């Protein structure tokens, strides 16, 4: 694997034991006797929220999808390039994810479970394939496997449903939530792999402690996946040096928080709300040593612009324009007003949240690093990083 995975309290417990079913079953009983109310109650007691980035309450989604001919979809595609937690789960704890999916299928009274694998990491598909073979037909569920295209938006819910339907793996407009009408018009419970893993863990071992998987990149050269207890302190994730620098929280669709902001806060939604941030997909990117938030944002927005599906005018045209406007500022020739204007123009005007997420990132840069931006507009940089001028 391209990432280091650290031992954790629940999902990443006992990593010395392999991913095989025999080890897993010693610690987690096979799913049985599951009803909608029991599973929803367990999810509610744990306040389980989706781990794909949006943080939607899982119990609500479960209840909404609890109608005839529902379908369960496990999203392992991990479109966010800085995130590796789904890859870690797929490789090391596949049965936890699969157990969660089976529990959900039982609760919904369906046998249809779809797994969406990451196109860029075939090793996950191999491991999942092996796990499915180990389980055989014991789950009384019909597994269907799909492989997502490489790319940021391939993991978006509607894009996944398009893939499952045999069409290009790109977003389309959702007139109703997929839990109401999704795959072939059927109620579709589509959630992130970690959400299902958490569900299985909660059912087997109760709601406490509530944990979350974090992917962090930093001064070590490989990204790391670790499991943190929600409500804990940030020094479990970041070194003191990193805490004293700006941090990008949530992923490329997350937001910046200013230097030192996390030092006295906990890993909890409430603490971050005041900063305009959420835990998102659990990606934590401290600003690399010697780099500059303006420069980093330019790089990320340029990447995000290139990842547009190209289906929606405001995104297809607006994101590259936004990237150019930011690049102009980075090189000292740009206008903050244009950046604000473009960020406001693209929000909410696409089939998916790709433009919204990009705009949020840019707005957070403008919010916290006004000084940095002003320096760049004078062709200086507080971190000594200057893009080539002109």
């Amino acid at each position, binding site marked *: 694997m391209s990432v280091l995975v650290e031992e954790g309290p629940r999902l990443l417990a006992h990593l010395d034991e392999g991913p095989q079913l025999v080890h897993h079953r010693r610690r987690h009983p096979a799913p049985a006797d599951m009803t909608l109310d029991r599973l929803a109650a367990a999810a509610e007691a744990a306040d389980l929220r989706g781990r794909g980035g949006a943080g939607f309450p899982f119990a609500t989604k479960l209840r909404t999808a609890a109608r005839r001919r529902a379908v369960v979809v496990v999203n392992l595609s991990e479109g966010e390039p800085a995130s590796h937690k789904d890859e870690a789960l797929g490789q090391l704890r596949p049965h936890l994810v699969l157990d969660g999916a089976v529990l959900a299928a039982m609760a919904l009274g369906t046998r249809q479970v779809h797994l969406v694998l990451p196109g860029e990491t075939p090793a996950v598909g191999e491991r999942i394939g092996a796990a499915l073979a180990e389980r055989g037909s014991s789950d009384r569920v019909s597994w269907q496997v799909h492989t997502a295209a490489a790319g940021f938006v391939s993991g978006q819910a509607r894009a996944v449903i398009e893939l499952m339907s045999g069409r290009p793996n790109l977003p389309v407009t959702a007139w109703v939530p997929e839990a109401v009408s999704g795959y072939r018009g059927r109620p579709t419970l589509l959630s992130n792999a970690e959400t299902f893993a958490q569900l299985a863990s909660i059912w087997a071992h109760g709601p406490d402690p509530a944990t979350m998987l974090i992917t962090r990149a930093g001064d070590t050269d490989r990204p790391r996946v670790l499991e943190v207890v929600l409500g804990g302190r940030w020094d479990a994730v970041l070194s003191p040096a990193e805490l004293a620098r700006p941090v990008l929280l949530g992923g490329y669709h997350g937001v910046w928080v200013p230097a030192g902001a996390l030092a006295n806060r906990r890993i909890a939604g409430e603490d971050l709300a005041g900063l305009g941030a959420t835990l998102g997909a659990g990606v934590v990117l401290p600003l690399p040593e010697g780099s500059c938030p303006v420069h980093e944002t330019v790089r990320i927005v340029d990447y995000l612009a290139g990842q547009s599906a190209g*289906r929606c*005018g*405001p995104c297809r045209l607006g994101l590259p324009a936004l990237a150019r406007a930011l690049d102009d500022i980075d090189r000292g020739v740009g206008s903050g007003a244009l950046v604000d204007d473009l960020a406001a123009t693209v929000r909410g*005007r696409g089939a998916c949240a790709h433009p919204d997420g990009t705009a949020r990132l840019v707005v957070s840069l403008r919010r916290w690093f006004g000084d940095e931006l002003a320096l760049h507009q004078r062709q200086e940089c507080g971190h000594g990083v200057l893009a080539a001028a002109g």
Partner: protein
Amino acid sequence: MASSRLRVDWPSCEGRGLCHELLPELISLDRWGFPVIAGEVPEELLPAARRTVAGCPRLALRLV
């Protein structure tokens, strides 16, 4: 009375601008010619909104 909103099916929209021609009270165009919807549809504009939905050559507008 349930409120009504105009929603754009963005993958279908090509920025032809007929919606703006038909309902300038609620629909303006951005710098690339794509519609910007300003808020919900008041009751007196509902008939006009329905005609605007029918008038889109790409059927990219819906009243929900």
